[in-house]
């Protein structure tokens, strides 16, 4: 798949999308579907497609394409559609500033520093991995401590192994995937340590990435020391109590040369802060309405920049809506404003979007705070849905049909997940 070089960069576009990963690509397609004419998608890498290129394992696309694809296959299908839709793709370019009247400043490998105007903007910058500094692991500062996603790029795209004996901290999906990936490359993966009493990744990944290869997962356990002058020579791990305090009397040493961190993602919202978008302190992403519009007029957001997803299919679904809404915005087809604010209640960490309108069907994405079995998801007293179990690691999505809301006249709707 060759992304053609963009020779002519116009001074003005109907819709400009910042980020060419799964969210950006689906948003571009959505904007085209809903009538936007000149569409530009910008990515900082040499090729659009985002992190999917390095996610070479399979399991993507079950919801969207109805078959299991690898990350690259998913990326290539979408990119083909983007190019077939005649969307301008500008790679090797950073959007480094944005103004409330939607002027974007770009730094581009091929076009230099440029300012362009956008009728509507879609923010699709994704998320970045949390690093060692985010959780302040004590110890020396040797080489060999890296994030799981960086190790994934080393192994899968650059053909470089990060080390020979690896300890993984954090049970996020990327860490689990890398435990298997490194094992397949002949690297010894000594174990995964998770500070929480429950795993952070999808259950299927615990089974097919750890159990299949007899890699131990230790819950309520963390790294309390990293040793080594030039290179990691070992770590000390210790169990933690219910307040997550390590019990050093039960600490033990493990000899290893590499530590991989899979300790969560942070939405990449530097641009959002440039225009003072309202951010949700729980998701660290912009507050969005039911059209995925942020607190700034004509600025939409989707994907991991809004909230960290566990499945790319839902990123695509949410981003398609954001792109369509951006198309509606520039063609003057805006739907009526939202009239209901969602309020996260019992065992609900957050809901996206943050507001709903009574006239349309919505998909509400939410995440719970703690695991629960045999529970009911309740939207006030207008809608309740029974589920077998919920986990913090698995995003829940609920379709809210207009018929549920037709007799609802309040302006806030509380969402709870309660035991049956």
């Amino acid at each position: 798949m060759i992304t053609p070089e963009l020779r002519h960069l116009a001074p003005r576009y109907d819709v400009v999308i910042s980020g060419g990963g799964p969210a950006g690509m689906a948003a571009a397609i959505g904007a085209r579907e809903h009538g936007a004419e000149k569409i530009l998608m910008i990515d900082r890498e040499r090729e659009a497609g985002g992190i999917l290129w390095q996610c070479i394992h399979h399991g993507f696309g079950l919801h969207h394409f109805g078959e299991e694809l690898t990350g690259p296959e998913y990326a290539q299908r979408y990119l083909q559609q983007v190019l077939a839709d005649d969307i301008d793709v500008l790679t090797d370019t950073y959007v480094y500033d944005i103004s409330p009247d939607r002027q974007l400043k770009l730094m581009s490998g091929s076009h230099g520093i440029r300012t362009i105007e956008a009728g509507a903007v879609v923010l699709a910058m994704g998320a970045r991995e949390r690093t060692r500094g985010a959780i302040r692991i004590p110890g020396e500062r040797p080489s060999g401590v890296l994030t799981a996603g960086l190790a994934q790029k080393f192994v899968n795209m650059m053909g470089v192994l990060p080390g020979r004996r690896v300890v993984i901290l954090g049970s996020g999906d990327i860490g689990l995937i890398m435990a298997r990936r490194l094992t397949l490359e002949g690297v010894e993966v000594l174990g995964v340590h998770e500070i929480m009493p429950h795993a952070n990744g999808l259950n299927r990944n615990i089974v097919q990435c750890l159990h299949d290869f007899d890699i131990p997962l230790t819950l309520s356990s963390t790294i309390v020391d990293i040793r080594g002058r030039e290179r990691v020579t070992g770590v000390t791990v210790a169990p933690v109590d219910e307040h997550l305090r390590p019990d050093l009397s039960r600490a033990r040493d493990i000899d290893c040369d590499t530590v991989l961190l899979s300790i969560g993602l942070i939405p990449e919202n530097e641009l959002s802060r440039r225009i003072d978008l309202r951010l949700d302190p729980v998701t660290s992403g912009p507050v969005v309405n039911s059209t995925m519009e942020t607190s700034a007029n004509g600025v939409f957001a989707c994907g991991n920049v809004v909230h960290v997803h566990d499945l790319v299919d839902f990123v695509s679904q949410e981003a398609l809506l954001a792109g369509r809404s951006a198309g509606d915005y520039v063609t003057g087809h805006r739907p009526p404003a939202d009239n209901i604010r969602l309020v996260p209640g019992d065992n609900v960490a957050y809901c996206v979007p943050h507001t709903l309108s009574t006239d349309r069907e919505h998909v509400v994405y939410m995440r719970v705070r703690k695991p629960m079995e045999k529970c009911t998801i309740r939207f006030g007293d207008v809608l309740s849905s029974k589920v077998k179990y919920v986990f913090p690691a698995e995003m829940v999505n609920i379709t809210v049909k207009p018929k549920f809301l037709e007799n609802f006249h309040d302006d806030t709707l509380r969402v709870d997940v309660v035991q049956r």
Partner: protein
Amino acid sequence: MSADNITHYLCIGCPLGCRLEVEDNGAGDVVEVRGWGCKTGKAYGRQEHTDPRRVVATSVRIRGGRWARVPVKTSGAVPKALVCEVARAVRGVEVEAPIAIGTVVLANVLDTGVDIVTTRDMERA
């Protein structure tokens, strides 16, 4: 029905991760699969109990490509016991850019009847 004849599996067919219960007649034949949420899960329980299989994804060397590696996968699931051996067999493969998605880079790996195919296009650098 004794508990000895029941094995628990977690379905890996999709991210829902249904908890399956497979009842066996003691001779390795599946009597019933319970706990599935869809056809995939029901079939997975039976398959996992009698002949567990996995799709293997890895990457191979590519000369002259934009990246040093191009991703590949098995064109179908291979026996779970062979997963590491398949990955080892693929490690020696080297291809030349440009290459198209779906290109067979190693046919009939370890006589499993399954091919190793690329999962993306890669142009010359």
